[in-house]
């Protein structure tokens, strides 16, 4: 196996004015190159914190993570597209390169090629408000891909979309990730989305979270997410994970 990332005993406590809240108790996980791992858990269980830590935005209270690559580039995609309304779609896609001072001609060409590839070329000079929610999310993905990430962290990237665009965009994103062969860790609270997109599913317990179970998703005839939802093993996984999450409504 080709190991890319080892997460070792990550622990995260948040300290407010009054108390200390334990968000992540202990998470140890290894991520293989090229796989899509989805972390599911009830809301507020600390799954987004884990991504923030991996993205370098927050610090873990203890524990560490190791990339088996020097200076890994991390692509981070959030719930909202977070596009800047005062920039064109193309300028938005360049923002990561600009910040890391890698906006060379070559990289700009690469971004343009991504726009062509994902059929958004004609919208490049438009402003975000002129695009649909699904398109905006695809631009957000191009913005993330522009920096040529070694690993992609997706924090509930489709949760702001309506159900139909959600299916379509997750299909798109899945195809893009697979085509570019980018290792991906996704956080989701949607079990169906997790099964349809991932190679592995990590189920987290309630806060303070630990890993409750890991599923290797094996579907007969694994295809794109929409088709995967029709697989006969699908409901089996669904029921098991639903039980693991122990959701009380």
């Amino acid at each position, binding site marked *: 196996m080709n190991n890319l990332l080892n997460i070792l005993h990550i622990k995260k406590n948040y300290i407010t004015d009054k108390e200390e809240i334990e968000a992540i108790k202990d998470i140890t996980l290894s991520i293989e190159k090229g796989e899509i791992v989805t972390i599911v858990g009830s809301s507020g269980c600390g799954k987004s914190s884990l991504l923030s830590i991996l993205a*370098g935005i927050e610090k873990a209270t203890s524990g560490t993570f190791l990339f088996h690559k020097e200076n890994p580039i991390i692509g981070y995609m959030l719930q909202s597209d977070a596009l*800047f309304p*005062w920039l064109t779609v193309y300028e938005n896609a360049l923002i990561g390169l600009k910040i890391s001072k890698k906006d060379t001609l070559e990289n700009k060409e690469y971004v343009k090629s991504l726009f062509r590839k994902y059929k958004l070329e004609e919208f490049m000079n438009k402003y975000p408000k002129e695009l649909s929610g699904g398109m905006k999310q695809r631009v957000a993905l191009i913005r993330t891909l522009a920096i040529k990430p070694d690993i992609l962290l997706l924090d509930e990237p489709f949760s702001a979309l309506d159900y139909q665009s959600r299916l379509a965009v997750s299909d798109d994103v899945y195809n893009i990730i697979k085509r570019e062969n980018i290792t991906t860790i996704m956080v989701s609270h949607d079990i169906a989305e997790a099964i349809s997109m991932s190679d592995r599913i990590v189920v987290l317990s309630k806060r303070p979270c630990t890993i409750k179970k890991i599923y290797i998703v094996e579907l007969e005839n694994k295809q794109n997410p929409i088709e995967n939802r029709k697989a006969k093993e699908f409901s089996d996984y669904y029921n098991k994970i639903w039980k693991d999450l122990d959701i009380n409504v």
Partner: protein
Amino acid sequence: MSEEAKKIIKKKKNQKYLIHFIQLLIVVLFFVLWEILANQKIINPFIFSSPSRIFKTIYTWTISGEIFIHIYTTLYETILAFVIGITLGLIIAIMLYECPILAKIIDPFLTMINSLPKVALGPIIIIWAGANTKSIIVMALLINLIVSIMNIYNGFLGVDETKIKLLKSFGATKKQILRYLIIPESKRTIISSLKINISMTLIGVIMGEFLVSKKGIGYLIIYGTQVFNLTLVMSGILILLILSFLIYECVAYLEKKLS
């Protein structure tokens, strides 16, 4: 375009003209009534003056060119205090944003200074800054600066956290976050604070002129009061009314252009 749509558009246009007409009518009626009342001595023209006297005074001033010195003085002081206020406001707001502890420390002081009627500081300002233009600018700054700082700073705080997170994930430095996100995102707040700022500045400048100056519209008004020449006072107020309206419109135009 359909006949129906044309009719509606025409009706809307007519309504607009009607509104302008009524507005103009109110102004004319006001002056006419004032003139008649003063002429018939129903109101004391010595205390209330009259439009004909006011217009005559303004006309004489215009011919002699004297009025332009006063307009220029007030305008110059206003623009200077406005530019300094906005620039300092922006710089201080950035400092507060970059250093949250500093923001927390000076927060009660800002509120305190903001709630103090600044005119109370007038006598001290004259002693400290001298009886000159400097005092007027300081007075105007006292009034416009705190509001500018608070407005711009609150605009900064309102920036979407997700966008900050995104830039951080690209490894952005504080300076880059400020440059690529905070400033452009708060542009609208900054621009809308210009309008508040210009009104505040004008209050400060006139107040300053009341206290120290030898030139300017504020001076005209206070001088008129001292010699009990109410026509002078009213003329000054009328000119100030027009001037402040024009300045406000200029800033409103600037705001429209920028956003």
